[in-house]
């Protein structure tokens, strides 16, 4: 025992000395993409599908088209466990591995991490992708040149949901009552300002009910909802909170088809565990589920056919989150392509060049069709004023076994929401003490 003890002590001492380990960095003729992912921890199941889709598409581009304009894509994952401090460590580590190109873009899929990185990435000239999450006032590219809350933001999403609900009530929600049930965090609180603006215009009554993290006990909240008896519940949940809410709604007898969730509360991971309680539940989404989208089917054939698939559970190919990962990867790759069109085809793009690509992104329906991604995600056209580029969502309904689309693309009320972003971004610039300006 004593010898083992000494041995172990010696080994641990040696290990603590041996800290200078630097594995080979990506080669200089490859486009490097840093992926701070999470596949373990409380949100690991979500991350597995999302990053599975992301990596599969990058692999697909490499296998099918030999990269972007002949430049192969290279990437490295780093486990963040959805933890801010680990995310920062990952970012610094990946940056130190790749000092030359500094990576194409970084996509942590965690609002907290993206907040922690927003200043650092701008200083380091690394584009920060926050596709459907993150700091929403980064829509204003003159204040946040390197941050891209692409496709759509929480505020635009909630505005689109209100529009959808109004559409179901002959265009007006006047006199109705809507409960906003939300995860009491940055994620859940962001839409409130937009909802309040909508409620003062649309003249409906808004009741805000927070749920403390992690939200696996919601008896009190749903009792209150039953007392209030609202016409609709708009639901901003995350992780285990989602299935709990659906079960609690069933218990108090609130109709599920009057609950409408955000896109982080609208995946198979949320509805399947809730079982029968989820039937009829509505949610927003900015990407479509299913394997019948040509690009998804092709990924299955090319990537999984070659035995390079990233998903351990292949059944989840085509799920909402998997397809979201693919959609996010499409936006990333298209940004590189746009940058190459401007700065030279077949070259490795720097962070600054990809930033230009992201700010001048124009993914039309025709382009989506070429990619085999027709209808998978909305059209995206960005500019310095608008790092969001779309602001459209669709509404889907869970039929007990799969998500069924029940609306076309709905755009939020841009004239109402975007000035809110502008004001918030301007305040940020003032706090930080700089003058906003668009980058060329």
């Amino acid at each position, binding site marked *: 025992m004593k010898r083992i*003890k000494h041995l*172990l*002590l010696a080994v*641990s001492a040696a*290990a*603590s000395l*041996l*800290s200078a*380990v630097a*594995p080979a960095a990506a080669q200089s003729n490859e486009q490097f993409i840093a992926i701070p*992912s999470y*596949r*373990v921890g409380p949100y*690991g199941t979500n991350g*597995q599908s999302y990053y599975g889709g992301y990596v599969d598409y990058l692999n697909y581009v490499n296998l099918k088209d030999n990269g972007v304009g002949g430049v192969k894509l290279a990437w490295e*994952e*780093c*486990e963040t*466990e959805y933890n*801010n*401090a680990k995310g*920062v*460590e990952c970012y*610094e*580590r990946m*940056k*130190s591995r790749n000092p030359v190109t500094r990576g194409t873009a970084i996509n942590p899929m965690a*609002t*907290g991490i993206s*907040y*922690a990185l*927003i*200043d*650092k990435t701008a200083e380091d000239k690394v584009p920060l992708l926050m596709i459907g999450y993150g*700091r929403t006032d980064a829509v204003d590219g003159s204040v946040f040149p390197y941050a891209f809350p692409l496709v759509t933001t929480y505020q635009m999403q909630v505005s689109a949901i209100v529009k959808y609900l109004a559409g179901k009530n002959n265009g007006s929600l006047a006199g109705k009552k809507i409960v906003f049930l939300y995860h*009491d*965090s*940055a*994620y859940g*609180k*962001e839409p*409130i*300002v937009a909802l309040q603006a909508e409620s003062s215009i649309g003249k409906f009554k808004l009741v805000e009910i927070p749920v403390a*993290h992690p939200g696996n006990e919601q008896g009190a909240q749903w009792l209150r909802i039953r007392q209030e008896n609202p016409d609709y519940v708009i639901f901003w949940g995350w992780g285990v909170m989602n299935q709990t809410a659906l079960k609690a709604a069933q218990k108090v007898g609130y109709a599920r088809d009057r609950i409408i969730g955000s896109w982080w509360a609208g995946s198979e991971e949320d509805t399947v565990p809730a079982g029968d309680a989820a039937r009829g539940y509505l949610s927003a989404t900015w990407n479509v589920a299913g394997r019948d989208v040509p690009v998804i089917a092709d990924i299955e054939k090319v990537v999984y056919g070659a035995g390079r698939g990233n998903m*351990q559970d292949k059944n989840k190919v085509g799920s909402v989150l998997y397809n979201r990962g693919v959609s996010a990867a499409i936006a990333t790759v298209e940004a590189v392509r746009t940058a190459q069109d401007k700065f030279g085809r077949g070259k490795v793009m720097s962070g600054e060049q990809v930033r230009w690509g992201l700010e001048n992104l124009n993914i039309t329906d025709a382009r989506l069709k070429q990619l085999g991604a027709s209808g998978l995600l909305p059209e995206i056209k960005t500019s310095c004023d608008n790092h969001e580029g779309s602001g459209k969502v669709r509404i889907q309904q869970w039929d007990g076994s799969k998500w069924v689309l029940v609306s076309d693309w709905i755009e939020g009320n841009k004239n109402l929401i975007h000035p809110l972003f502008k004001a*918030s971004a301007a*305040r*940020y610039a003032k*706090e*930080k*003490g700089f003058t906003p300006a668009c980058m060329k």
Partner: protein
Amino acid sequence: MLYREAGQFKSSYIADSQIFPLRQDRIGFWTLLMVAFLAVPWLASEYWFSAILIPFLVFALAALGLNILTGYAGQLSLGSAAFMAVGAYAAYNFQLRIEGIPILATLVLAGGCAALVGVLFGLPSLRIKGFYLAVATLAAQFFVVWALTKFGWFSNDSSSGVISVPRFDLFGLAINTPVRKYLFVLAIVCVMALLAKNLVRSSTGRAWMAVRDMDVAAEVIGIPLMRTKLSAFAVSSFFCGVAGALYAFCYLGSVEPDGFSLDLSFRILFMIIIGGVGSILGAFLGSAFILLLPILLDNLLPPLAALLHLPFTNATVSHIQMMVFGALIIFFLVVEPHGLARLWQIAKEKLRLWPFPH
């Protein structure tokens, strides 16, 4: 042979009461400081500053704070993250709302705010002890996070509750690069560690330890319980508050109330348990262990797996990392239940006899 006190005579009380009575210790300590202040800024990369050294120092400071309360004064607390949150948000508000306030004043004021909150939540310690007190400090943990989320004023009405810290400078020198941030944090941590060391050697520290060992006996010999316990809470929270402010200002750059969760409190508690309860050095060792070991494993495992041709995915590596980390915690605690600081002490004692142990 090399490490012993033979031949070192002390001819004054001052010489006898210095922190490191042994010349060898003094030389080692000053060398360490020289390396930290002069060599490291030249040698370390940006990654080392931003991802390893700065968080290490910040958490060492927080652990130091908790160690004063739990290790020296014997009051178990689960609210360290809350006091850090108070420090971080207070510092943010002072910087934001008072034009041109120096950063050092901000840090002291932020620590002061945390100390006030600490005293407030320390009041139950006058009546309850041990695990019951831990539960009472748990209230601080939840209350502070709730209050920071609930009242928009604290975060300057940011819609998400997230604050992002403004730029700041020290005597006109902008603290904006990783090296400068590191040196700034290092200087503050050094000063505060010195302060802590001298506090626990003073009559205040002796009073804390007397209360820790037996509060009835301490009261009998004339130590005022209320003042002693509350001063421990105040000093401890002050340290945690400053650590929180540095956490926001020099490490992450933007924080949200949820970031200061119970998880963080537990991490700090584990740091002092593994590093050594009731030891200044222990706070540093514990912080290094809890913070750096996972990163080391993260860096070590993938090349190792590649070397042995093991088909490890990222997720598997993470799982293995957690298992190894857990096993090492248990191993070190079994080897030395009094923590790494005690291990270091034993090593020093052995070194004195080396190479002729009897």
